[in-house]
């Protein structure tokens, strides 16, 4: 029987944005088993729903995560609006879609910077984050917050964007588009990135489907799985195709994200071109009764909010199933056979957002 040792990975590690702990069972520098452990940022937000008005709870739902925050509030609003039968006006749907795509751009640029940092490529990390600042400036100018927007509410949105500002946003995106394409080119063709990530942590398409992988983790293995294809909010009118890559290793998961940034720029330009006029909210009367599963596509994958209400102003149950939570079994499978020095890169490619996973 050869020597097996157990090495703890995390919760503090320079490559992790949020604390997760994995116990790695090693046999001569190769991982044979990985045992995850979470709970370092558990705040029990699902319990708070019993004490807060359902309209105010949107702001708590938003603070489940700091990076993918806007999509959480839109998913919660979608669930309540479906239960109460509220029809959100088209202008509000389009502006929500624009903000969701901005949220996706900034989250992916954040991840690309972290991936470059995990490889040691500091310059690319700084470049990706400098581009991210341009996106965050536009978000703050229109919603009031850089990472926590607070501009979605049950029935519509809180702040309107005037049409001149929309034109300015599109011009700004056109100006930074060559820089985004250059960053994409480096991730695709650079020798260092390729050498470190090609062929690492392979997840086959069948495994991705069986183990419940979602988002770029699944799309990097060739699964054509994207909730935006179902056309919620304004995606149905904008025409959308998911981005997939066939190999299933770390480099493909990285390329899915960097292609999605460019696809998001296209979506914003199309949405501004088709923007309808009209009101931005619809009044909410009464309390919800019923239950519903609302699905949206967060930057990290498919996010589900289950809401059950019984006619009072506090809803009975709000269950959030975030993409990182369901990507942990594929991570355990991916880590088998990887060398110890490559473990940080593999853990980072599922985009661990533990604040979401352990709400």
């Amino acid at each position: 029987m050869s020597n097996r040792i157990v090495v703890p990975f995390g919760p503090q590690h320079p490559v992790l944005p949020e604390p997760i702990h994995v116990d790695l069972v090693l046999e001569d520098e190769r991982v044979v088993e990985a045992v995850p452990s979470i709970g370092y940022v558990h705040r029990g937000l699902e319990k708070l729903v019993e004490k807060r008005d359902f309209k105010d709870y949107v702001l708590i739902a938003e603070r489940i995560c700091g990076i993918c925050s806007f999509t959480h509030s839109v998913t919660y609003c979608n669930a309540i609006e479906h239960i109460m039968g509220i029809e959100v006006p088209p202008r509000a749907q389009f502006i929500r879609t624009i903000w969701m795509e901005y949220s996706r751009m900034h989250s992916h640029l954040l991840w690309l910077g972290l991936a470059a940092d995990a490889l040691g490529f500091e310059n690319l990390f700084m470049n990706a984050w400098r581009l991210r600042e341009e996106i965050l400036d536009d978000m703050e100018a229109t919603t009031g917050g850089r990472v926590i927007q607070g501009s979605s509410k049950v029935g519509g949105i809180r702040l309107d964007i005037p049409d001149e500002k929309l034109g300015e946003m599109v011009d700004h995106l056109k100006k930074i588009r060559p820089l985004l394409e250059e960053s994409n080119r480096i991730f695709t063709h650079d020798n260092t990135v390729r050498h470190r990530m090609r062929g690492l942590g392979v997840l086959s398409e069948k495994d991705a489907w069986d183990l419940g992988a979602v988002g770029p983790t699944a799309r990097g293995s060739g699964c054509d799985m994207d909730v935006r294809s179902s056309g919620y909010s304004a995606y149905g009118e904008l025409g959308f195709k998911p981005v997939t890559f066939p190999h299933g290793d770390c480099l493909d998961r990285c390329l899915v994200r960097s292609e999605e940034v460019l696809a998001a720029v296209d979506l914003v330009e199309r949405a501004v071109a088709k923007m309808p006029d009209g009101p931005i909210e619809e009044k909410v009367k009464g309390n919800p009764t019923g239950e519903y599963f609302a699905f949206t596509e967060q930057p990290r994958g498919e996010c589900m909010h289950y809401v059950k209400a019984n006619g009072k102003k506090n809803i009975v149950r709000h269950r959030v199933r975030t993409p990182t939570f369901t990507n942990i079994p594929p991570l355990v499978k991916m880590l088998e056979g990887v060398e110890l020095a490559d473990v940080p890169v593999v853990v980072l490619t599922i985009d661990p957002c533990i604040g979401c996973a352990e709400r």
Partner: protein
Amino acid sequence: MTLFAMAKRALANVTGKPATLMYPATPAKQYEVSRGHIIIAIEDCIYCGNCQRHCVSQAIVVDRANRTWEVDRMRCIICGVCAEVCPKDCIFIEPDYHPSTVGPATEFVQGPPEPPKPPKEEKTAEAAE
């Protein structure tokens, strides 16, 4: 890559100005809708307690009998619900952040005493504290 790509980039970086903001010498970028902190115009307040009931982090305490309103700056998450539900629209959101501090950061505002009841008499405008 093109010829001298790295040399050109290095020269541009050395001779150009820094890409970052020299904070705190230059103030942080802010916009009109940025959410920094909340303030109240205490003369218009009717002490209904709506902001206290709807506050998501329970940071506001309203005392109707003594006509006071206080907010715990450390608990406030600047979500803006109080500004939305106030029936008299007397809570506003300002763009600049509260300076950092250690210890409790409760801001206590004492409202003006109640104006006299009969409607024919002119209301005396007393300055709020």
